[in-house]
């Protein structure tokens, strides 16, 4: 059903507003774009008519000195009824069309691929049906006028989804409200810490689509990017199978995977640079001082507590930004992460490990 001629709904005018066509074939995208262009042209017609009339009146009836006023009716009931009823009819239509697209956005087709999405300050995590999570990430790169390479400030995770198949996301947050928005799919829904919300789309073409957080969530709100990569379904399957957690290889490789997939990498480095949180490199056995006094040696218990109750011991110089991972990680996963941190080297570093070349630790090596 075309509301308006294709020439007005597509081509230049569509490019002007949206740059690209919607990349999802879900109803909210198709109906939404169609409705938007319809409202746009409706508005243009009204606006041009009203402003034209205004301009005409202002020119025609401009004040001439000494000219007597001309009487004209101060109201005109049929006219007033007409300009109340006619817009109402348009509005009723717009409402129903909008509701139609919305209703479509609410209910995913039964064969949808179900993926869990978690948002936290300031990272995204998708958990695939097989339990795998994406280890991929990238930075957007740009070239400035001087030819220098620039990058975006944070690593953006890359998530894969199958092409030509509806995908439903079950979304929840670990801290504050976020909002999942893929402009190419023309829809967003908020993500809450106390309940699940849903989102579905169907991307038919292979390609990359940026994900933004649309609900203000703090410092790095504007850096909370991710990329949604649409792959052919077979490739999607083999990719997520390849990401499955390597439980059979012992705790350290598992910990390394979890480090990337559970969002640790957003705040903690493994190369010695301090980030939002302290680095993990060569902290094993180190003595940490805490905000408000007290110190402790980094061991399995300390790490475990810091993951589950981050607010309990806050390391000096790193104001607490971390959320609790209680319920997000089970015991095996915690053990794997602890083993991984231990594998990153003890403090003081054993000679020849080569992990501390940046030397950016807040405390001098060998302070204890």
């Amino acid at each position, binding site marked *: 059903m075309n509301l308006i001629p294709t020439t007005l709904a597509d081509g230049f005018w569509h490019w002007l507003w949206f740059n690209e066509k919607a990349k999802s074939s879900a109803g909210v995208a198709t109906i939404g774009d169609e409705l938007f262009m319809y409202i746009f042209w409706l508005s243009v017609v009204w606006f041009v008519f009203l402003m034209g009339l205004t301009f005409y009146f202002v020119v025609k009836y401009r004040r001439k000195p000494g000219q007597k006023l001309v009487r004209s009716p101060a109201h005109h009931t049929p006219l007033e009824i007409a300009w109340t009823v006619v817009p109402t009819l348009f509005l009723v239509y717009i409402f129903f069309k909008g509701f139609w697209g919305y209703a479509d956005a609410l209910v995913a087709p039964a064969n949808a691929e179900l993926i869990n999405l978690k948002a936290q300050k300031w990272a995204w995590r998708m958990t695939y*049906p097989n339990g795998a999570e994406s280890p991929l990430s990238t930075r957007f790169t740009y070239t400035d006028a001087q030819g220098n390479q620039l990058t975006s400030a944070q690593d953006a995770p890359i998530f894969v989804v199958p092409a030509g198949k509806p995908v439903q996301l*079950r979304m929840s947050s670990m801290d504050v409200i976020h909002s999942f928005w893929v402009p190419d799919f023309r829809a967003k829904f908020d993500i809450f810490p106390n309940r699940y919300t849903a989102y579905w789309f169907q991307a038919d073409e292979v390609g990359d689509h940026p994900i933004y957080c649309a609900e203000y969530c703090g410092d790095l709100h504007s850096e909370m990017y991710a990329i949604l990569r649409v792959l052919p379904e077979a490739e999607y399957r083999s990719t997520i*199978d390849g990401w499955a957690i390597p439980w059979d290889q012992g705790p350290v490789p598992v910990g390394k995977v979890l480090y990337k997939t559970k969002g640790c990498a957003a705040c903690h480095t493994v190369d010695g640079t301090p980030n939002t949180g302290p680095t993990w490199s060569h902290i094993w056995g180190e003595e940490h001082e805490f905000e408000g006094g007290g110190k402790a040696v980094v061991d399995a218990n300390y790490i475990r507590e810091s993951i*589950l109750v981050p607010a309990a011991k806050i390391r000096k110089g790193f104001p607490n930004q971390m959320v609790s991972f*209680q*319920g997000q990680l*089970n015991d095996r996963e915690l053990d794997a992460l602890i083993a991984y941190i231990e594998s990153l080297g003890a403090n003081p570093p054993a000679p020849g490990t080569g992990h501390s070349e940046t030397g950016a630790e807040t405390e001098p090596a060998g302070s204890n």
Partner: protein
Amino acid sequence: MSHDPHTHGTAAVALDPTDPHGATHHEHVIIPRSTLMNVLLVLLFFTLLTVGLSRAEVWAAGFFGIEIPQWVNVAVAMSIAIVKGLLVLLFFMQLKYDNKLNAIIFANCIFAVGLFLFFSMTDLGFRGVVYEWKKGEISLGGTGGVSRGAGDHKETISGNVTHFAREKYLALWGPEKFEHIRASVKHDHPHGADANTANLSRAITGQTGALSATAPTHSAGGHAPSADGHAAPAGDHPPEAPASHDAPKDAPPTGGH
């Protein structure tokens, strides 16, 4: 406080200068003492009635095991409160005798309260229209600990605060003393709080249980379900196993369900 309506020879329109828009004010009413006293007596009667009905219900439930649906309870108590409120408004606050405008103002305000209540409740009460699981709540304590107190008394709460308090006193008193104090505080409670503890709780539907039932359960790692992934509807049973209650109930499907 009446006025002599007098006309003005000079002005073209006959206007009462003290009330140019006509009769917006009224005679000052002196409400008879007997009326006020009767209203007070009726109000006291309704207070005792609503308390009596409430007691009767508790008694009926405890003695005969008659469970009156909660909406009846709410409807009765609220109807009595509305009658009492109307009496206060009409007589004590003199709306019955007063400028109608005041009644209109108050009616509008009640209407606004109604809108507020209606739409907020419609939203929070109808979250599960499309998917049942959208209605459920993910566990409390999900955002990583709140601190309270200062200095030596500083405590960081992880998980649900009720379980935190229970754990704290269990550790402080030891299980024996804990049970003793519990019995002394709760058993002799003047209201018989434990009358039918078994029916106090209602599973909050649509939690992780429902989620994992519909989510594919294929687990690549094949690791065994762990204790902290156990989905425990809040308060379904007394928290003998605190560990299961501390666990937030929104572990992702991979978490071993």
